[in-house]
């Protein structure tokens, strides 16, 4: 029984490893989605060198992956100044109007139900997007995620396999500096990483009609 379980665990580990950590195939084609605008020279050369070495000699030992793990994180620049808004819809015509406007501006629709539509967009496009919508929708929205870049960053591992903290990249440190003026900003980046304990019970948050990102910050 124990041998079977160990065998099964080994199988599961082998299965899970490619999807949990950074993956072994260096990406060479960035044609369709341009991300970083001005990559620094030395990290790029290091990445190319490491890719070549890995290709010839195989993957390096695990302990060296920690130092390189930063290089495998995607750039946060595409998400800079992006938010996710939730629009409350009450009629099919509202839903159609949202769909058409989101199409026209090539916006990323995160979710659409009978009651709400979540859309990701840059802050500086909010006013033009609202201008395309009927009057009834212009005030029927609230901010779900005030800082997409920070939320993206938060989903990547902050600890490597050896238990060491992965240092914050220079780009992340620049992009995620605390904002001082935004009244909607309740996302206290200085408390990162979000090593919070309990998750608050959701019902009272929904009753209050707020589902701010601080749900999980206690």
């Amino acid at each position, binding site marked *: 029984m124990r041998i079977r379980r160990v065998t099964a665990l080994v199988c599961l580990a082998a299965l899970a490893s490619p999807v949990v950590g950074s993956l072994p195939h260096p990406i060479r084609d960035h044609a369709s*989605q341009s991300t970083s605008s001005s990559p620094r020279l030395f990290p790029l050369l290091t990445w190319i060198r490491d890719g070549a070495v890995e290709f010839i000699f195989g993957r390096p030992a695990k302990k060296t992956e920690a130092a390189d793990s930063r290089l495998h994180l995607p750039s946060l620049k595409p998400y800079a100044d992006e938010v996710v808004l939730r629009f409350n819809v009450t009629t099919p015509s509202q839903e159609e109007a949202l*769909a058409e406007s989101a199409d026209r501006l090539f916006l990323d629709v995160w979710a659409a139900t009978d009651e709400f539509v979540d859309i990701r967009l840059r802050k500086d496009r909010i006013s033009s997007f609202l201008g395309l919508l009927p009057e009834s929708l212009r005030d029927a929205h609230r901010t779900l*995620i005030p800082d997409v870049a920070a939320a993206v960053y938060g989903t990547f*591992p902050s600890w490597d396999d050896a238990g060491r903290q992965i240092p914050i990249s220079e780009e992340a440190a620049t992009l995620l500096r605390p904002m001082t003026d935004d009244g909607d900003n309740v996302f206290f980046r200085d408390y990162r990483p*979000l090593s919070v304990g309990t998750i608050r019970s959701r019902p009272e948050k929904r009753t209050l009609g707020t589902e701010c990102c601080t749900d999980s910050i206690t």
Partner: protein
Amino acid sequence: MEAMFPSIARVISIGSSYEGKDIPALKLGISRSDETVHARKTLVVTGGLHAREWISTTTVNYVAWSFVSNYGRERMITKLLEHFDVIFIPVMNPDGVEYTWQVDRLWRKSRQHTSMRFCRGLDLDHAFGFEWDKSGVSHDPCSENYGGSEPWEAVEALALADWARNQTRNHNVRFVGLIDLHSYSQQVLFPFAYTCHVDPPNRENLEELAVGLSKAIRLSSGESYSVTSACRGAALRSPRHISHVEAGGGSAIDWFFHELGAHFSYQIKLRDTGSYGFLLPKEHIIPTGEEIFHAMKYLGDYLLGNNGIERAAEDREPTDATRDTDHGSELRRVKRHR
């Protein structure tokens, strides 16, 4: 020898992605030598069809882990794996998932080339061949809902279907359900996704079981998952693309339900309800895995013939009544419908 030491876990391959990556799966179940006559009932649990929905992949892995860990300890799980195979496929879209790690964390589709050079990727959940041409989704390769220029153009969807068909034709397998995990919005969705105008023949049972799954989740963690038809799921219907049938054709659960007869197929949209959306913090990984593990135990209990009666499996006297009897009569009813 195999009968004396049955292995409960095996890593198998579903096929390959567009970029040539393997699509691995973990198959759990007890092989029994006396099962050559009857087809082996099989449940499939998938994650990672949409690349940015990371929680779906971690949940598939966590549930698989929980099944392995509790085999031999929990009577219901032990019995389930004796009567059923459960196939866990954590990442149906490895190309897309890798892209989310390397380039764009919010990528959704696969990485397959399309007719438009600067717009890659197919939406795997709109690429299956059942009611594909009735799809109200986009025929624009740049759309996030693009399902290809024809059914089965998406390599990964075709790989899953080919594998499943091969299992039924050549390996004496009978699929009883597909649990397709996605995020977000916390919903349990039952077929069909392609239309709200046609009910699956066993809709009442499907809906009753879905409510049971939702309740199992709530009892586990307090999280509330709503229950509705997949036709009301999260596709935004642009007026340009609406056909006479509204929602999303070409979905995995529709195909498994209709073509393979997997009559307990669901799409479950996991946490959260919008606070982080796809960017769910890692602290949710275990709680989400736990609550879906509880839902899967409820499903297993139901499939073993306990009709959703709410008693702990450990308290119940073991019964040999499996879902075969009910399932058989349902299948007969389904066939009459056709």
